[in-house]
Every structure is written in C-alpha cells, then in structure tokens.
C-alpha cells in the first residue's frame, strides 16, 4: 500500500496491484493491462482446461483401439479408426447425411418463417409484450419435455393430431411411430421450437435499422416487397448471417429431442441417427471409445467447416 501524490482534491489510494495509479493515462494503461489479464485469466484457464486438454485427449483416443473398460489397456492403431469411419456406408455416412438434411431443412424453414414473423411484428402493436412472452417459452423449455408433449400430440392412436386429421377427412399418419416420417416430423418439431429464436434475433436486428432508406424508397414508389428485397434484406445482412451461424451450429448438434423421442440408435431403422446420436451410441452403448473419438473428430471438423463456410458466404453477401 503506497501513497503518492494524486490529483489535488482527493486523498491517495492504493492501487489494485502495483505502483501508484492516479495521474497519467499512461500509468492507467499499465494498471489496466495488468488488471485485464488478471480478470481474463480464470476464464482462459477454465476454458483451456475444460476444452483444449480434452480435445487433445480425444484426438489421442481416436488413434487408439480403446474399447470396453475405461482403464483397460489400449494400443495405437494410427488412422485405422478414421479409415473405418469414412468407409462405413452403413452407419457413418447415413448419419452424416441425416445430420445435413436435418440441419439444412430445419434452419432454412426457421429462417424464412422467422424473418416473415419478424417483419410482421416489426411495427409495435398492442399486446406485443405478450406475444414475445409466448414466443420465448418454446425455446426455453426443456427439449425432453417438448419431445414428450409432441409424442402425445402425434401419438398414432391417442393423439389429437390424427384426431384432427381424421376430422377433416385426411388419412391418419404414424408420425414418430413410422420409420419414414420420423426425421421430417422431428425437423418440424425443431422448427416449432426454434423459429421464435430466429424471430427474436431478426426482430432485434430490424429495430436497429435506420428508417430513412426505406422511407426514401417508399417515396420513390417502391412497394412493400421491393422495399424488403432491396433495402431491408441487404441492411439486415450481418444480423441474418450471425443468426444463421448460431442456429446452424446448434441444429447440427441437436441431440436431446432426437434421443428423447426415438431412443438409442435413433429408432428401429436408425431413422433419426445423426452424427451426434451415433457418436453417443458408439461411446455409451458399444463402448468403442477409439472409433467414437474418430467420429467426433470428424464431426467437429464438419461443424467448423460449416461455420467457416457460412461466415464467408455471409461476409460476401454484406460486402
């Protein structure tokens, strides 16, 4: 605790960690720099320990034939696991395909519907607060509970959905009980749950847009659609790109709703087995840790690839 002269009217104060503060921006800088690293370090350490170390361990595991008990002996097999995974046309590639189909389909629908809804809600209206409240409930509810609720609604024999369909003369569907319909049904459930997220994100973006360009266009005689396409959409670009990346990454990693409704292996014919579900099964049902690690490495690279791609496309659109 050292005291030094400070700007006249105040008594001296000891600094948080080092020589006297107080006078010039330059000494401010030093103390600031020390402090900011002190503040940042716990987070960096934590993240480093919890991510970097395990990631390295996963890569290491992927090069072994680890199997069975966790502390059993294991040997290095080089890239054999990767060869096995990439050559597996029965489980791996279908899982990759399903992951892509699920993500692309759900995210596109969520974006389009979310944008439409955001445009609709753009101008403030009475009860907007309540609408927003209703909107955030699906996306904050536990996915397992959402799975249960749709299992009831879509139950082939007892569910209200088939009841309504029959009421308007349409044939009954098996929905989640059917092999072919499960993935599309789950995509729609995902759309139901996450469109509000896109809506809120895009709405936030829309409200920050300046009004003049649109006004100018309207005065010039452009109609609603033209204004949207040529003024709003380009200005919304960055927000759209961010929202897209956020949602795409989460959609690629979807697990809860798939596992809760169809169980291990993604259903009888693996119909909803995405890479995430597959990797989970490899680890905890088959105990093939080496192969699981290889699939996970590939999966992580896949996700990073998608993010990079989206960011680049998004950047180009806004340029």
């Amino acid at each position, binding site marked *: 605790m050292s005291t030094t002269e400070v700007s006249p009217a105040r008594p001296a104060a000891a600094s948080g960690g080092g020589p006297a503060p107080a006078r010039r921006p330059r000494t401010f800088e030093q103390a600031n720099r020390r402090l900011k690293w002190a503040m940042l370090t716990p987070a960096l350490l934590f993240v480093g320990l919890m991510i970097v170390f395990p990631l390295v361990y996963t890569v290491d595991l992927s090069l072994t034939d680890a199997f069975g*008990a966790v502390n059993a002996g294991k040997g290095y097999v080089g890239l054999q696991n990767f060869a096995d995974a990439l050559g597996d046309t029965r489980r791996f590639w279908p899982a990759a395909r399903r992951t892509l189909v699920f993500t692309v389909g759900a995210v596109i629908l969520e974006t389009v519907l979310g944008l439409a809804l955001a445009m609709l809600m753009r101008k403030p209206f009475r009860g907007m607060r309540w609408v927003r409240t209703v909107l955030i409930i699906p996306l904050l509810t536990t996915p397992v509970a959402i799975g249960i609720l749709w299992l009831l609604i879509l139950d082939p024999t007892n569910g209200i959905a088939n009841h309504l369909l029959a009421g308007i003369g349409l044939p*009954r569907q*098996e929905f989640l009980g*059917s092999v072919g319909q499960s993935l599309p049904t789950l995509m729609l459930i995902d759309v139901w749950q996450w469109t509000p997220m896109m809506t809120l994100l895009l709405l936030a973006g829309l409200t920050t847009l300046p009004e003049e360009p649109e006004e100018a266009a309207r005065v010039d005689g452009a109609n609603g659609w033209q204004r949207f396409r040529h003024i709003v959409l380009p200005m919304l670009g960055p927000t759209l790109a961010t929202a897209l990346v956020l949602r795409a990454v989460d959609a690629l990693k979807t697990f809860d709703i798939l596992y809760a409704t169809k169980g291990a*292996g993604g259903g*009888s014919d693996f119909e909803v087995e995405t890479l995430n579900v597959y990797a989970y099964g490899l680890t905890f*049902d088959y*105990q093939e840790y080496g192969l699981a690690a290889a699939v996970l490495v590939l999966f992580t690279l896949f996700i990073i690839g998608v993010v990079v791609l989206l960011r680049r496309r998004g950047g180009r659109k806004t340029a």
Partner: protein
Amino acid sequence: MSTSSQLLSRRSFGRLAAGVAGAVGTGALTACTTGGGRPSADTPLRIMAINHVWSQAIRRRTEEFEELIGRRVSMTLLTADQLASSYNVKLNASGTDVDVMMVRALQEQLLFAHNGWLADLSDRVAQDEEFAWPDFQKAPRDASVSGGRVLSVPVVTERPALYYRKDLVEDHGGPPPTLEQLMATAQELTDKRKGFYGFVGRGQRSGAVSQWSSFLYSHGGDFVVGGRSGIGTPEALAAYEYYGRLLARTGPPGATNMSLEQAMPIFAQGKAAFYVDADAIYSSFLDPQVSTVRETVGFAPFPAGPAGARPHNIPSWSLGISTFSLLRDDAWEFIRWAAGPEMTAELQRDGIPGARTSVWSDPRSLASFPPDLAEAMRLNAERGLGYDRPRVLQVGRARDIVGRPLVAGILGNDVRPVARDADAEFAGFLVRDNRHKES
C-alpha cells in the same frame, strides 16, 4: 475513504474466491467419499437391481436377511437402461459403492468378465453344499460361467409365452400349435379398421431380437452356425420373413417403435388376439387395474415351426459380486440367501420363475401359476435353448446388426438384400469380437 473501499473490494473479492474454492473443494470431497473409504459396521450392503417383481419381492424380505448378517441392506431399483449406465459409470471408476449386482447374464456377462468387473464365485459355489450349485438348471448354469469361472448366479428365468384370447380362438380349435396356424388365425382375426390386431409383439429393433430368437430356432436357424454368421442362411431368412409378415399384416401401426412397454398394453387392453413375449409378465394381464382381459387370457407354449418348437429358456436376471466391493463375504451371504433353495422355492410359489430344478419339479411351486401357464412353462423349459441373443462381447452392436432384417420385414420391405448385407456385417463383426475376446 477510498482506502477502505479499496480494502473492501479486495476483501469481497477474496471472499468470493474463498467461496469458490470452498464450493469446489467440498464438491471434490463429497465425490471422494462416495468413491473410497473402508467399510465400517454401519456401511450398508449395497445392491443394485432392476425394477422387477423379483427385486420387489426380495426387498420386502430384506429385514430377515439384515438380522442374519447384522448389517443393513440398501437396495436400489432402477430401469434396465439406468442400471446399465450406472454399472458403466461406477465400474469404470472402480467404485466401491456397489456390492451385489443384478446382471443379465446373456447381455452383459461376457463384457463385464472381459473388463474384469465380476468377482469369481467358482470356489464359493463349489464349496457350499447347502447352496447346491448343481441344482440349478443346466442352461442357465452354463450361461453363468465365463472363461471357466462362475461369475453369476441366476435368479429369474424366462421363456416366451404365447398369450392368447380364449374367447376368440374357441372357434379355431384353441391356441395354435404351429407357427403356420398362428399366422393363419391371426390374419383371420385382424380387423385393422376397427383397431383390432391378430398379433402384437415387439418390433423395436434391439428389443425384438430376443423374442425373435425363438422364431429363429423354430425355423431351424441360429445366430452363429459353426462359428460363422448364421443370419444369412435360408432358415434365418424364413424366420425374418415370417416375423416381419406377422407384424406387418396383423400387427398394430408403429410396431417398429414398440418394446415390451408399448406392446404389452395393447394386448392388456384387449386390442390383440395373440401376443408373444416373456412369460414373467403374465401377472400384468391378471391385474384388474391395467388389464381388461383378465377373464379371457390364455397361456400356451411356443408354437412349432418347420424345425419343431424350439423356444428360448434363459436366465433373464442373475446376481454377481463386483470385484471392487469391499464387502464380498457379506455379498456372498446375500446371494446364498436370495438364491438359495428355500428362497427360490418361496418366490416361485409366489409366481416368480427361478432357475432351480428342485423347485421346478415341486408341484407346490407350480401351483401359484395358472395351470395352462405352468404347463406352457414346463414344455418351453424342456425344449428350450439357453440363449436368446448372440453370445458375443458386444451384444448391443450384435443385436443392432441382427435386428436390421427384422425391421425391414416388419416395414414390409424385401428382407433378402437386407439379410445378405446384415450377414456380411455380422461376419465382420464376429471376427472383431473374437479378437476382442482373446485380448
């Protein structure tokens, strides 16, 4: 003034840090105490069990055992999935908080043995005359032995029962004695428009495999024939196509999603004429709270296929001792008591089928079962094979492979290409599995 505020901030920061450290510390401590520690006289004997009529019956009687050994008993009852994942977690951590384990000898034993998780009971069963190890039925007894060592003791056995509606089969000459007749009668009785199905059974890939095994054997097939994959043989193909056709033509919608929990209520609510599943669940159909067919349910032995009636007769649940347990002697005392001749007889008189020959030959123990069920169980036991799934380390993966053609059949697709592909996959799997067995 600012000095004190400075100190205050430092102090409060320090307090926060201390709090964090404390929280993490106590967390780590509690974690440690669950893992280690020497057992005191107060430590209960910990038993992990499946939520099953057997476990519930034993739990009602644990006081008697507690007095016997002077130690408390703590029994945890879980679902099959929870149990499996609990074992995975605790045994991978060499946890000492499990003493007696209830395991499925045919599902987990080989893998657990490979991992070294089950204690060797060979000496104990050999030296204990009262326990009468040879009294156990041959097939379950054989399944309890891995690598020449006795690793588990069977307590519940299971065979497939043909549950049927007496009122509906009256005009068809009673329950069908052959699979062919089952198919014919089921088709006649099916009226999908009215929501009534001739046959209901498990269709979910993995769960269906164990029930389908009886169909496989009765068509003359087997999972592994002469050390190689048997699921591509004509017999296996016939069995796949039969079961697939049965469920596709006469079964309820969404059959591929049905495990025991979904299939059983359909028969219990009177929506099906025939149901093939474990005979151990018969009491659900006599329970007025869940069943509307209490008066009309009949029990028949598994019908005969082209190769005769060859059902499975398996030890569905067995007791083992964890290698990491610190109370092995007390754990063995528990097994002696719970699986001993007296208790097995007592439980079987209460309707829980055990694995002891002496109990099965005692007419009193069969008196608790409905007479046609007792007869069905007896016949099934006589003809039964001792396993209902491939006898490999990775049973999970094997069931997934073997179950694919089954699902294809139930969906009404052509089984042959799927069976061919599954056959190739299974062959490759067997090679890898054998390699694991040897390592």
